[in-house]
């Protein structure tokens, strides 16, 4: 009996990377069990019985392709899912990188080193961080299923609806945090690229909210509204455009969070170094997510059209 449960657990893990809700997978599991039942009664081992039954249920990729063609909105939902998850993973890594950069600059500045030394430390930390970032991008490009290979059991069990819940909760949390910290001591020189970034944080937050509303509405309509098997071009472009704008706006929110230690450093590190670092944030806030989503969009388009 324990063998059977173990074999079924392993079978469920094969579906971990697929966009399939838990009830749908439960229904398939019930089917698998009914198929395996008579085989077990005939004396087959649990592993063998589940293997044969799994062959009858079908390979995950083939069954998922069938689910997609039976419900075309799944394609849009899938794309949004990977975009949001991809965006959040990249944002989290970039926030960590920024924190590392800030921390190393702080430590170097405390030792009484020159501005150049502080900047060099910051860039070395940045370079190391970007290696991690690029490695993550490559992993995502290889199928967006890197989560499955993480040695953490909970990720294997996570349902795509739960992943969405976590993503939305994270967004809400960070937005709430930014609202509470509305009066940040933002008294350093703004980078010339974005004159309103970030002194007019209040205005920026409203924009951020508007973008989140637009994004949620588009996401909702994409999921609700039935479309042809291959979504029309305008819808795909809305898909990509919303993703990029939201990416940029949420990215600024995240970046501001990570900048906070730098702001506290203001009197320790020279304004020139800070200026350079913030300029870098401003550029990155728009450029990196845009590049990332272009890559994702192309990959998704290719995968969907060949499916």
């Amino acid at each position: 009996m324990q063998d059977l449960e173990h074999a079924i657990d392993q079978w469920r893990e094969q579906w971990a990377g697929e966009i399939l809700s838990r009830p749908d997978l439960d229904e398939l599991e019930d089917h698998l069990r009914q198929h395996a039942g008579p085989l077990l009664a005939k004396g087959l081992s649990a592993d063998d019985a589940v293997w044969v039954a799994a062959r009858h249920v079908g390979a995950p990729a083939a069954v998922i392709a069938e689910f997609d063609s039976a419900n075309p909105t799944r394609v849009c939902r899938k794309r949004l899912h990977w975009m949001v998850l991809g965006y959040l993973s990249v944002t989290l890594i970039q926030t960590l990188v920024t924190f590392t950069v800030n921390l190393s600059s702080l430590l170097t500045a405390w030792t009484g080193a020159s501005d150049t030394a502080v900047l060099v430390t910051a860039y070395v930390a940045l370079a190391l961080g970007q290696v991690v970032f690029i490695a993550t991008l490559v992993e995502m490009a290889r199928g967006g299923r890197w989560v499955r290979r993480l040695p953490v059991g909970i990720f294997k069990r996570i349902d795509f609806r739960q992943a969405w819940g976590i993503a939305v909760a994270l967004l809400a949390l960070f937005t709430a945090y930014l609202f509470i910290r509305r009066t940040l001591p933002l008294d350093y020189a703004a980078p010339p690229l974005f004159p309103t970034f970030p002194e007019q944080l209040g205005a920026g937050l409203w924009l951020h909210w508007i973008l989140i509303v637009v994004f949620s509405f588009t996401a909702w309509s994409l999921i609700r509204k039935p479309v042809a098997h291959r979504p029309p071009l305008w819808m795909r472009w809305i898909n990509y455009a919303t993703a990029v704008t939201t990416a940029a706006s949420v990215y600024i929110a995240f970046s501001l969070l990570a900048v906070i230690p730098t702001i506290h450093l203001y009197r320790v590190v020279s304004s020139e170094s800070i200026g350079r670092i913030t300029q870098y944030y401003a550029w990155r806030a728009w450029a990196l997510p845009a590049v990332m989503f272009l890559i994702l969009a192309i990959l998704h388009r290719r995968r969907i059209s060949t499916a």
Partner: protein
Amino acid sequence: MATKELVAASSRPLVLSILERGESYGYAIIQEVKALSRGELQWTDGMLYPVLHRLEREGLIKSRWGKSETGRKRKYYRLSRDGGKALKAEKTQWVNVHNTLAQLWGTPTCKI
């Protein structure tokens, strides 16, 4: 053995007709199709569920989560009123196809 296309095309009237007899679930539906067709209609079992879900979205069948004989949860499907109408239309279509071929082949035609 029926081709893949024919199996896919006939899945809709088959599911509706089986559910017309009463509430059922995925595995039982497949077993019934296998038995009735004497193995001529072979489905990859996993393919049935997207069909069931589509019929449910179209409002032709309804589903509920119940318990199996071993107490595990199981999803049961039944025909809705719209499903009954859709089945009537399907019957007419399939009998028309059958009768057209039957006349050409000189085999007996049938009525609904």
